[in-house]
């Protein structure tokens, strides 16, 4: 069936049902099949190679089985209930902040988020006075003077198709896993970033500057390419709790670093974690991977994961170029009934490569936190070094924590060190703080901050203060 026919049918349906013309997303049928994928590609005006990419991914996806090895339990996802195309327009018709959940507003205040920003994040229609579009456009023009491309993925497909064609799916092939296959067939939008040779990006790029960043897509696709000798820091997410009707979020992030290039990717994630009894909440199943393609390249993953009902992700790095460096810093906080199965994979392929993994997890309430890490050294990866420290802190008697590292070395010149400690906050440490006049909550906060220090200190300045406040906030009620 041709695309035009499909649109015709839908439009006819609309009329027979008597709906008035509203936002596009209201009409898009749910479910996934080849026709819908063609429709998505058509609406976005994508070139053929991308349509083929999507279709191949879909064909692979239907042959795959949803993975069950994760240390997480969740209700079965009905893939036919999901609407796979999201319109760029405002989804929720919220006219003022009074219509927004007061809990969310309270959190915005505690995090010190300005009113205008609060409106934007809640999906309130932007005031005519506050024209964010012009601010954003001037910013992007400035970047272009350096040759830096930073725009939405959709825009990049139309303006820079060659770059997209060269790199998409090369770091995370669609066949990699169930969710990356799904994402590769129906991805909506995301970020695209290209830093040309010898350029150091003068500002930290953040999703705020993408138009409609507050409308977080369900199947985001991000591609960052750092050419020789370049460097960039990218910030994803924000500390405000984002509620979304869509439960499943399966994003894909690919990073490519050429010779001598450096990419730092920081994520602060505070998605809706579900209520105190574990009902609702977002499932965050992300595939993130970077490849240190060139010699002396470096990729750093930073994450502070505090939200989501279920977090299932392993930002990984393939250390292909000789002398490349991969680093992973992570704090994961789970409370109530949240579950996290997160960690990283460092795959050493090139010589003299090195990796550092620092993971701190805190579990409270009835939550479950799992660290899963892999350090794999291929036979030709001579003279490599790895240091891993993964520590867990437990609160209360109903939370549990699991540590499953895998260390596999296939040559005689690797130097690998791994350490992990699981404990609760010591009574002595707590009493020391109490005796100096700090109440229990403040004492726990500063001790936990000390516990996470190694990771927090690696975050970019913009996130540092927010992350600390977020950490304190998320521990509220965890004590006792």
């Amino acid at each position, binding site marked *: 069936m041709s695309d035009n026919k499909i649109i015709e049918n839908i439009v006819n349906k609309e009329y027979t049902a008597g709906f008035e013309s509203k936002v596009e997303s209201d009409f898009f049928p749910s479910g996934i099949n080849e026709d819908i994928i063609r429709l998505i590609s058509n609406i976005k005006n994508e070139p053929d190679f991308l349509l083929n990419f999507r279709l191949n991914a879909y064909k692979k996806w239907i042959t795959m089985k949803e993975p069950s090895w994760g240390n997480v339990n969740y209700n079965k996802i009905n893939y036919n209930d999901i609407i796979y195309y999201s319109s760029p327009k405002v989804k929720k018709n919220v006219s003022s902040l009074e219509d927004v959940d007061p809990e969310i507003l309270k959190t915005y205040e505690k995090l010190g988020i300005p009113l205008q920003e609060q409106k934007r994040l809640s999906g309130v229609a932007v005031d005519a006075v506050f024209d964010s579009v012009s601010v954003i456009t001037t910013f992007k023009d400035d970047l272009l003077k350096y040759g830096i491309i930073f725009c939405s993925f959709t825009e990049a497909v139309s303006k820079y198709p060659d770059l997209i064609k060269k790199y998409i799916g090369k770091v995370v092939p669609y066949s990699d896993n169930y969710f990356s296959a799904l994402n590769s067939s129906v991805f909506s939008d995301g970020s695209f970033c290209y830093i040309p040779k010898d350029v150091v990006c003068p500002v930290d790029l953040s999703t705020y500057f993408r138009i409609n960043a507050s409308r977080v897509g369900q199947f985001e696709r991000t591609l960052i390419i750092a050419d020789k000798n370049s460097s960039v820091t990218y910030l994803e997410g924000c500390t405000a709790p984002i509620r979304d009707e869509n439960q499943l979020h399966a994003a894909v992030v690919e990073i490519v670093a050429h010779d001598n290039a450096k990419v730092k990717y920081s994520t602060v994630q505070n998605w809706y974690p579900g209520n105190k009894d574990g009902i609702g909440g977002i499932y965050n199943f992300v595939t993130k991977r970077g490849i240190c393609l060139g010699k002396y390249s470096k990729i750093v993953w930073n994450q502070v994961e505090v939200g989501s009902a279920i977090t299932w992700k392993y930002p990984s790095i393939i250390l292909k170029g000789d002398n490349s460096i991969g680093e992973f810093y992570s704090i994961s906080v789970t409370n109530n009934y949240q579950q996290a199965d997160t960690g990283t994979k460092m795959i050493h392929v090139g010589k003299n490569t090195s990796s550092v993994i620092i993971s701190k997890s805190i579990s409270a309430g009835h939550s479950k936190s799992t660290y899963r890490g892999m350090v794999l050294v291929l*036979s030709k990866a001579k003279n490599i070094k790895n240091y891993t420290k993964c520590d867990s802190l437990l609160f209360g*008697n109903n939370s549990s924590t699991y*540590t499953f590292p895998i260390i*596999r070395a296939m040559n005689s010149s690797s130097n690998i*060190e*791994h350490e992990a*400690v699981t404990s609760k906050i010591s009574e002595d440490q707590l009493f020391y703080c109490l005796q100096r006049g700090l109440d229990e909550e403040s004492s726990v906060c500063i001790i936990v901050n000390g516990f996470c220090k190694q990771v927090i200190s690696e975050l970019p300045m913009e996130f540092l203060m927010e992350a600390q406040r977020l950490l304190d906030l998320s521990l509220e009620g965890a004590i006792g």
Partner: protein
Amino acid sequence: MRNTSFLFNKNFDYIKNNLLLNKKNKDMEISNAIKYIDNYKKNIFKDDLSFFNDIDLENFDLLEDYISEKIDFKSILPFDISKNSNVILCLNNNYYIYKGFSSSIKINSINIFNPSVFKKLLKFEEENNYKCLNFFYILNNIFSNNGLYIYIPPNFILKEPIYILNFFSTTKNNSIVYPKKFFYSDDNSEVSIVDYYFNKSSNIANNINTIINLNTYSKMEYYYINNSLLSAFSSYSINVNQKKNSIFKSNVFSFAGIYNKNYVNIFMLGKKSESSFNGIKYLNSKMSDYSDFNVNHLADETVSTCYFRGLVTDFSKCTFKGSINIDSNVKHALGELKCNALVMSDSSSVTLLPKLNIKSYDVNCMHGATVGFVNEDIIKYMTTRGISREESIILFINLFLCFYIERNNFFYKIVRSILIKTFFI
């Protein structure tokens, strides 16, 4: 290339038939065995499949009851046995108490199918909730026709170790044997047991199951030494139930087997019990070794340590899987797991999977793992003192592998003498 799925199904059927025909098996064992077999069919225990695909159980005869050749075991043994030592000889899974065994020792070693012993075995499995069961354990339950039972009476302290010398040899093409050992230490007793294995033929598959029960306040030191030159397949399991205030120390030195699987499961059922495990592996040529160590803290104030040191060279492969499991509501548990590996050649590989499964917050657990080559600083230091590089490396390896053995312990001498023999072959 053998048709692996054919052998797979053939072996399952063989086991199932035998299981039902063997009238010695109780109902519980049958249902557990069938559950396990079904799980294997569903590929849940993939790791053991290579055994299943390399062996045709039907073509394996049970090992003959006698050893036809004369073994000068005194020259083989890496330690001295005096006339007064407590020695139990095991020849192809038949047990003989040596003449030199002091008659004043109140130890019973009887056929394992005595009904009162059998009752204790069933109780053992019940007490740890059948978590000691795995595929090889069940195979051993089904097919084992003989074993050794040692009972140490309450308040009895034995100062000299009991040596169990196990020798295996066959003239047949493919044999399989299922030795079973059951050691029961009653309250307040103290004993040390040395379990020494020497398999002379490469046509023998050895599936050993050692079951240890430590009653309150008892102490046991258990040494396992596998000094076979070559063996087709060897699987040994050590399963320990610990009651209140008991102390279990084990040293395992495995030095053989083209394909070796080891399972150690420690269940700390009683408060304030302590366990320590020291595993040493030295693998060369094409050896492949797989260890699965699990310590379960099921009571308050329990302490466990596990140290694993492995060295791989030539084309060998070593996998160490170790977990500290702490049940919810367990208070004041301390656990430490350290695995260190030396990789000496680029064709060998090592895989370490140290795990922590913690369900209680009142714990202090740590694990560590390292992989490396010899420490160059130490080697350089030794060479500046006139020791050749080769010798320095040998000294370093010795230091590395024997790190957790007390120097004045007889076990240290045993390990050293075996290592020396290897280096100079």
